[in-house]
């Protein structure tokens, strides 16, 4: 919403509509348009649940089951998090999502000078296995899947999850973890990277390989085009970069001698709902098709279910405003409609107050109700892919497919996604668009209700920030210090030196990380080994 460009004549009649991805929309569509874009029912559409899955990955769509609704939550220290987890499970939630504080995400212990003022601020502080043991105490890990919102140190956190599960009596082959584990998107947007591109991608390869061998129910990567889009990318770039990023991880694992069907079925995607409704629907329909074709034609995937673009389609935080915040309730409802018309299996909305504060429980509940209304009252479960066959939707889906392919070619010409991220080509492209978008909003060329049109006199909502709890940060640091006194420090030294040796000699580091975790080595200590061996990512100059 507020993303397409509208040209008007002096009578306010719209004379041209252009989507951000470059698709120009006509006044009306007919059979000629399908012929113009070379649309074929068999090749481009087919039945729901059939290759190329344009119409969705399930034959019965929402008839067989409605989408899963997932709201993001989690603040504080391990003990509070454990209480919160138990409360959510008691209320019927079947999956948990763990948010980590910035020091943990960046591989620093709570007592590191770099962590000052950030311990426990935006998520849980994890220093060692002890924190994980407390956080997951009493939870049936064979039944509950756990999402770990972590990237640069996802290998460490996945190893810690395994170590914790084993301590609690669960075998690694029954547990299901879903680390985000997409470092290339961190380098393009969001910025929680540590190590240089190649070792960072190799660590992801290690986690995937380890999952194949030891934790087959784990979903080792969640490709997050979401953050790339929220950093400024167009819809077409969001999908193009996501596919290329996934391919970079695939290639790393194939080099280790595995077959594509050994692991790709466990990949999932986290994609954005932002901007124009029709463009968004076209993005998902074209995205599913291209991902399936990529796997089938480029990688020779044999199994249909391994070609599914599964995942979470939702969020849309960038589309919300702190001006007239109640408008965000309506905006979110349309985002949810877009997700439903796109065939999302899982969705989650940003709460209406998220543009200026940590969501209140009331606002979070309204988001959940918005998703439920669509499924229970509005009629989104009636039939699969209701927009299929529309001259307009099929034409722009085809056009979107070409736009995505063009963006993929641009990156390939720049040397591939790894090179494009190393040189800053991808970051530059995304950042330029963010700038153009902002100029469009400021000039009024892109419309945003309450921001540059239909403004009201009242002031925008005051931004409220989460109060920093210095006392619980102190407690966390004290507990880290007592851990360091109590643990067997020679075992810590031994396992860390074996980890270093493995990292230097190019072995899969995962078993060594599990040993370090079991010896109660800290996240900071393990990350320091990697920092010493791999170095740090040098952000390319992009201006």
């Amino acid at each position, binding site marked *: 919403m507020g993303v397409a460009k509208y040209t008007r004549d002096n009578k306010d009649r719209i004379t041209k509509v252009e989507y951000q991805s470059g698709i120009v929309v006509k006044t009306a569509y007919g059979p000629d348009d399908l012929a113009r874009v070379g649309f074929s029912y068999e090749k481009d559409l087919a039945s729901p649940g059939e290759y190329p899955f344009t119409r969705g990955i399930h034959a019965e769509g929402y008839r067989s089951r409605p989408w899963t609704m997932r709201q993001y939550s989690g603040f504080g220290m391990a003990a509070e998090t454990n209480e919160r987890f138990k409360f959510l499970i008691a209320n019927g939630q079947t999956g948990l999502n763990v948010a980590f504080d910035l020091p943990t995400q960046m591989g620093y212990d709570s007592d590191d000078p*770099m962590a000052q003022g950030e311990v426990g601020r935006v998520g849980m502080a994890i220093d060692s296995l002890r924190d994980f043991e407390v956080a997951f105490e009493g939870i049936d890990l064979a039944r509950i899947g756990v999402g770990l919102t972590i990237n640069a140190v996802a290998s460490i956190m996945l190893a810690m999850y395994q170590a914790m599960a084993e301590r609690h009596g669960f075998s690694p082959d029954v547990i299901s973890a879903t680390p985000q584990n997409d470092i290339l998107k961190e380098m393009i947007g969001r910025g929680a990277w540590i190590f240089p591109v190649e070792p960072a991608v190799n660590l992801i390869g290690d986690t995937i390989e380890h999952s194949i061998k030891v934790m087959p129910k784990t979903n080792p990567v969640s490709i997050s085009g979401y953050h790339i889009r929220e950093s400024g990318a167009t819809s077409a770039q969001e999908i193009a970069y996501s596919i290329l990023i996934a391919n970079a991880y695939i290639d790393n694992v194939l080099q280790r001698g595995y077959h594509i069907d050994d692991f790709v079925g466990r990949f999932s995607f986290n994609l954005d709902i932002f901007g124009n409704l029709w463009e968004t629907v076209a993005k998902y329909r074209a995205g599913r098709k291209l991902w399936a074709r990529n796997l089938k034609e480029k990688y020779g995937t044999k199994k249909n279910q391994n070609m599914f673009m599964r995942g979470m389609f939702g969020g849309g935080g960038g589309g919300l405003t702190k001006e007239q915040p109640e408008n965000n309730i309506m905006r979110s409802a349309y985002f949810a409609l877009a997700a439903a018309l796109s065939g999302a299996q899982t969705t989650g909305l940003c709460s209406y107050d998220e543009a200026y504060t940590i969501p209140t429980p009331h606002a979070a509940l309204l988001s959940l109700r918005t998703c439920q209304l669509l499924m229970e009252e509005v009629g989104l479960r009636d039939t699969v892919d209701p927009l299929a066959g529309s001259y307009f939707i099929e034409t722009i889906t085809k056009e979107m497919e070409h736009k995505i392919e063009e963006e993929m070619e641009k990156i390939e010409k720049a040397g591939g996604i790894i090179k494009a991220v190393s040189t800053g080509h991808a970051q530059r492209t995304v950042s330029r668009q963010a700038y153009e978008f902002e100029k469009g909003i400021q000039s009024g060329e892109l419309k945003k209700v309450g921001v540059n049109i239909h403004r009201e006199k009242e002031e925008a909502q005051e*931004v409220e920030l989460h109060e920093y709890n210095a006392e619980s940060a102190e407690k966390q640091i004290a507990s880290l210090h007592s851990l360091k006194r109590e643990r067997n420090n020679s075992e810590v030294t031994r396992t860390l030196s074996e980890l270093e040796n493995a990292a230097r000699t190019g072995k899969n580091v995962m078993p060594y990380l599990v040993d370090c975790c079991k010896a109660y080595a800290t996240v900071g200590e393990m990350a320091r080994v990697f920092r010493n061996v791999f170095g740090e990512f040098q952000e390319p100059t992009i201006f």
Partner: protein
Amino acid sequence: MTNKIKILVAKPGLDGHDRGAKVVVQALKDAGFEVVYSGLHKTVDQIIRVALQEDVDVIGLSIMSGAHLPITEKVIKQAREEGIGDKMVVVGGVIPEKDVQKLKDLGAKGVFPGGVPFNEIVDFLKQNVKHT
């Protein structure tokens, strides 16, 4: 030597949300300023060092993590200790209205919460920076 006003846009701390900082860098460049971007995850020490090395006229801080008050205080204190206390410090990012005056009391000359139009920032800098 150029006679352009030179601005450091810096990202202190661990937070990696740099869309805003990078957008402002481009707007300032288009407005004719010379801009140095620090990159992510910088300590206050590193930011002061770059300000010294690059001999900038303005130190701009982009802070989204909520830690704008302690960070700004530290930057201003350290700038004084390093003999560049005359450099203008400005702050942008997720800044609640109630903290704007507090930041000014600490010594920040300009405060630009998210959503402030580019021309407001540009005009402020053109009017208030004494180029040395």
